[in-house]
């Protein structure tokens, strides 16, 4: 196959490209430039869009012995990922930009451009496994390294996208991948993993949002509506947050208080006791199915945040929404995050969490 290897400049995508090449594919390395002015995004060595990262990717491609180009995806990235990130926060939700980037950029804009240019697949350094299913469909499963599994951020990929995807690292541990990078003479072998949001250079998401969206100041209230204090911006808060509330007076019962709700228009942040965070009913919108859409109730597990635990649940499709009933309540579920539905290790699909509540009868 003719394979486009998306190379971020990190160790994972470098080893993924090397493995694709070694497997006999005709591999071309590409680095996605996600900013027109790459220096504006990140100055450290942890991100995925600096000149240094681009050079690291280029050097890895040299060592592997594959052609290498930089693709300018900055316009698409800005309109599909950065603007979505801002508008989601402006609506009081907590988006996952990596997931959006996979859905709209890596396995959409890049894949489509690659297919049109004569390539057959995109290979990335994501930790997930693809298998041929019994029904002739391609299945995506969790990676063997539970600490690195990235199937959650790939849960937005549909069958057509999966059919043109390669995840060469899904069967390996991160430790093995680093050792292999060393063995292959890839200079990125010891490069630290990136964790933060790549387009927020200093890691200060709240500050970045304040700059882009304005302060968003408002009041902090309890569940009865009593004003407990004020805050400098809703963007500093996320559902389930306990630290940094800076409330002068303790709760009457002396228990810690958590962010229960964020109302972006008025800027009101509601806090309350931990048990109020518990939800067991989730409505998801914009569902994406890896295979065919489920026609009946699915006994499943759901993952509700990146690196979050699994919850046993029943999922059912209601028109263009997905209703998820959790068997045991989950805590601090933020609208905007993805609910990814699993059957064992297999990804069934995903939806964006629109609302999460406690069932009245429960």
């Amino acid at each position: 196959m003719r394979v486009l290897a998306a190379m971020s400049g990190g160790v994972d995508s470098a080893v993924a490209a090397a493995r694709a090449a070694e497997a006999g594919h005709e591999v071309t390395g590409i680095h996605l430039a996600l900013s027109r002015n790459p220096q504006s995004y990140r100055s450290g060595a942890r991100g995925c869009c600096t000149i240094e990262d681009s050079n690291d990717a280029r050097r890895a491609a040299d060592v592997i012995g594959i052609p290498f180009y930089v693709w300018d995806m900055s316009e698409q990235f800005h309109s599909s990922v950065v603007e979505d990130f801002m508008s989601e926060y402006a609506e009081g939700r907590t988006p996952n930009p990596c997931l959006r980037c996979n859905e709209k950029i890596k396995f959409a804009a890049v894949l489509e451009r690659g297919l049109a240019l004569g390539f057959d697949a995109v290979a990335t350094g994501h930790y997930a496994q693809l298998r041929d299913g019994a029904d002739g469909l391609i299945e995506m499963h969790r990676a063997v390294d539970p600490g690195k599994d990235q199937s959650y951020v790939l849960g937005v990929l549909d069958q057509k996208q999966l059919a043109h995807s390669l995840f060469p690292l899904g069967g390996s541990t991160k430790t093995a991948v680093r050792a292999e990078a060393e063995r292959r003479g890839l200079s990125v072998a010891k490069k630290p993993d990136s964790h933060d949001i790549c387009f927020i250079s200093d890691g200060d998401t709240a500050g970045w949002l304040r700059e882009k969206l304005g302060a968003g100041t408002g009041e902090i209230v309890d569940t009865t509506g009593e004003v407990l204090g004020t805050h400098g911006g809703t963007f500093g808060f996320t559902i389930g947050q306990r630290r940094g509330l800076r409330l002068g007076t303790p709760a009457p019962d002396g228990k810690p208080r958590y962010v229960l709700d964020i109302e972006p228009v008025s800027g009101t942040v509601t806090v309350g006791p931990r048990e109020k965070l518990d939800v067991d009913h989730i409505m998801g919108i914009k569902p994406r199915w890896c295979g065919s859409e489920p026609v009946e109730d699915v006994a499943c597990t759901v993952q509700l945040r990146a690196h979050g635990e699994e919850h046993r649940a029943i999922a059912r499709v209601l028109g263009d929404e997905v209703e998820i009933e959790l068997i045991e309540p989950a805590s601090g579920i933020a609208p905007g995050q993805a609910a990814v539905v699993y059957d064992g290790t297999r990804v069934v699909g995903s939806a964006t969490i629109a609302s999460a509540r406690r069932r009245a009868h429960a």
Partner: protein
Amino acid sequence: MARRALSGDYPCLHMNDELPVSVAYLDHAATTPIYPEVVDAMAAQLARLGNASSLHGSGRAARRVVEESREAIAAALGAGPSEVVFTSGGTEADNLAVKGFYWSRRQADARRTRILTSAVEHHAVLDPLHWLATHEAAEVELLAVDADGGVQIDALRTSIERDPESVALVSVMWANNEVGTLQPIDEVVALAGAYGIPVHTDAVQALGQVPVDFAGANVDAMTVTGHKIGGPFGVGALLLRREADLVALLHGGGQERDVRSGTLDAPAIVGFARATELAVKSQPSRGVELGELRDALIAGVLDAVPDAQLNGAAGNGRLPGNAHFTFTGCEGDSLLMLLDAQGIECSTGSACSAGVPQASHVLLAMGRDEATARASLRFSLGHTSTASDVERLVEAIAPAVQRARAASQGAGGSASSNGSNVGLPVGGAA
């Protein structure tokens, strides 16, 4: 023809051995294959001891090589030997000219803060000028160009005549590096000269392609460089009138009229000299041959892709080795990648930042929009170019354009979002 024999006989003219396919090199404006004689001359000099500034025998021997090289370059370019100031290449020579002239002219008369230049100069001229504007209170005026990239001489006249006393320098390139358009240097010199304003010209692309004569052009300073004419990287010169007074950028040992300190690189200089002699000597016949080859390339590409647009001046108004096209609806870098995969090497012609193609300031100055600018490719011919190189391009271009258009369309790329006609069928596609 002779140059084919060269590339057959000398392994150093073979393209990179590790490339999987034989290469049709159509990027001579980026750099040129080095002449084998140049390699020989450099290798011999590399083995010789001597700092050209030393007073002993070894030093004198090195000095002699440098001075003979200087004389050879001067003779080939119509300059006096003392008018050759060796530099590390074109960028340094351009920086030296524009900064050095600006500082010395302003020193002599504080009113002289204006620098007039064309909007299509190389970044090696534009960027130091922007730096002077930011840090040294220079007023930089970018002269408008016509749709072919030619400087509008009326714009220069108006600009000078508004206040001739305040002009420190005029800098206009001999030929544009992207679209190949030759600039009216004679007219620029006549206009500026009437007011005693010095003129610098970047002749990096022109040398070896068209006749270039320093004294004949009557400019005050001229940039040339080795690797664009079959010589080595890392060496060039600013040809600088004997009486011109420049403020130095590099201070140190006082070499090169105290304008450019630094130990003279005798092996590079001897290679540069040999390349200059060869390029200038062969220019008359090469200019004709390249012009014919270029015309065949243009005709072939336009035949294969009828809606391709040739950018830059027509016929003798452009470098004989330059052909520059817009393929509407394509991303230039998609097209480059598709051709590269077949061993056909060309350029999008614009500056890069971390490999991110920026829309060419040259095409924007010529009135093109961003999408058009990004849909463009430069093919440039030089001393090793052959008819077969051109034939390979002509065969490959239509299918590549078709693919690249589909890619722009399918991926919702910037070309399509800017409303260009990505949906048009590709005419003449095989």
